[in-house]
């Protein structure tokens, strides 16, 4: 059975239909890219899955739980972690403390108002492991606000990983990076994805990045799914070329 399954998911803003009857299912261990032109509803899809935005209609099942409409902190605790299109970090904390706070969110005693040495120790072990997976061990003690843009993007992924998620949602992980930084970050991500066998839902504009990382691709256009398949199938699909690749030129 699929780990993440959407059926008939719709989100309206007044007359605008941002998501229109979206159905898709993501298998465990799969890296799925969601692509589509600007305004196709990719970020809205992420917001609906993570509970930042409630769907107007439809069901979302994650690991057997119906999660549509739950508050975002509850969905997060079921094992859905995400990164943001625009870098969101704690700039004055060290990279390690950023990842530690992320890991702490999954601890049963994350709220402990005194002591808590064991909470910190367990969270820090997860944080250090995640930083290592993303190749950030060397800069773990530096304030997150002073890291290079590429390292900041990777730190966001490390923070999500420190939460030991069952599915990882990456919203344009190379957004705002230069060509060289993008190439480096994609190499690191590809190595990490291969080693971790993580289930990933990825939104990305850069087609090279998508074809490098994704096992399967879902194409959104005006809020609806117009194609779903392997990178080669999607590349060959006439509707996709018409709506998306053609639309670029």
């Amino acid at each position, binding site marked *: 059975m699929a780990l993440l399954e959407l059926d008939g998911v719709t989100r309206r803003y007044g007359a605008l239909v941002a998501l229109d009857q979206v159905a898709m299912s993501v298998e465990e261990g799969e890296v799925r890219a969601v692509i589509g032109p600007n305004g196709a509803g990719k970020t809205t899809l992420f917001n609906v899955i*993570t509970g*930042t935005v409630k769907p107007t209609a439809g069901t979302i099942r994650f690991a057997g739980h119906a999660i549509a409409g739950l*508050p*975002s*902190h509850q969905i*997060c*605790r079921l094992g859905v972690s*995400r990164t*943001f299109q625009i870098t*969101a*970090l*704690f*700039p*004055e*904390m060290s990279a390690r*403390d950023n990842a*530690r*706070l*992320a890991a*702490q*969110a*999954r*601890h049963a*005693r*994350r*709220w*402990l*108002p*005194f*002591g*808590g040495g064991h*909470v*910190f120790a367990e969270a820090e072990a997860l944080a250090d492991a995640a930083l290592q997976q993303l190749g950030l061990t060397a800069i773990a003690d530096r304030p997150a606000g*002073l890291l290079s843009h590429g390292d900041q993007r990777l730190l966001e992924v490390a*923070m999500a990983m420190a*939460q030991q998620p069952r599915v990882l949602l990456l919203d344009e992980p190379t957004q705002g990076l230069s060509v060289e930084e993008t190439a480096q970050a994609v190499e690191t991500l590809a190595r990490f994805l291969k080693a971790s066998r993580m289930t990933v839902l990825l939104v990305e504009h850069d087609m090279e990045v998508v074809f490098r990382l994704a096992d399967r691709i879902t194409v959104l256009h005006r809020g609806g799914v117009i194609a779903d398949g392997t990178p080669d199938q999607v590349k060959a699909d006439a509707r996709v070329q018409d709506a998306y690749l053609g639309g670029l030129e």
Partner: protein
Amino acid sequence: MKPLTTGIAGIALLAVLVLAPLGLPPFAMTLLTEAVILGLFAMSLDLMFGYTRLVSFGHAAAYGLGAYACGWLLLNTGMPMLFAVFAGALLTGIVGLGVGWMCTLATGVSFSMLTLAFAQLLYAISFKWTSVTGGSDGLAGIPRTVGPFGFAALSSKAGFYYFALACLVGGFLACRALVRSPFGAVLRGIRENEAKTTALGYNTRLYKIAVVAVAYGLGGLAGGLYAPFAGFANTELLFWLLSGQVLIMVIVGGAGTLVGPILGAAFFMLMEHQLSAWTEAWALYFGLIFIAFVLFAPEGIWGLATGLATGRFRPASERH
């Protein structure tokens, strides 16, 4: 080396405060006791302002509520002072839960405005509910009731000072444990990026309500000490001017340090006392001092002290 130096400085400061009644004249003891009470009050606001970036424009509500509650209990029941003070703190903390629930419906400036609105509401009530609050006269002649358990020592000048100092030290140790705990780490996350903290899976609103309740409880403890200290509670304790002054104490002392606001409160009292003996427009001169701190020492007195001790001092223009 830094934690060691500050630790030694803290112990030295505590030793001076413990020995103070031996050498100081009664008038100075009165000032020092008030500084200790105000220090506790300022420190309670630091939990919200310094650690969670929740800017309260109405923290006088906690002080005044604690003072009125404790004063009313001492005047109208036979409750010993020790219990009345803590009962005032407890009541204020419970009210703080409601205030936190209400004010965290909003964020940013709207949050601040709601805290101010609540404080002004209490201020209006203190005028109108004459049968309980004494109206514009306030509550006068509040006794330091000894009670049946023999806390007589607390009622003397030095005894009351030690009682207030114990509350300050106890409050400081509790706050320090709180900000160093997992709970405190979440508060820091809210301070730096609340949206991200929520996205990580924290229910940030509950944390904010809790920290407002704790800050109110400690502020109420300070107010509860003030009532038997001064022997009265009046509407000025709920006035917005005090809310502004306590914010200034926190900023001048050094927000987000706990010790800083205590020093800031003492500095404020010292300046008020010295400057007002010299000019009526003392608030104007203190305003200039405040501006100088914001411009040249944004980390406050405590930031200056620890910076000098470790040679890390940098003026504001060189900070990143």
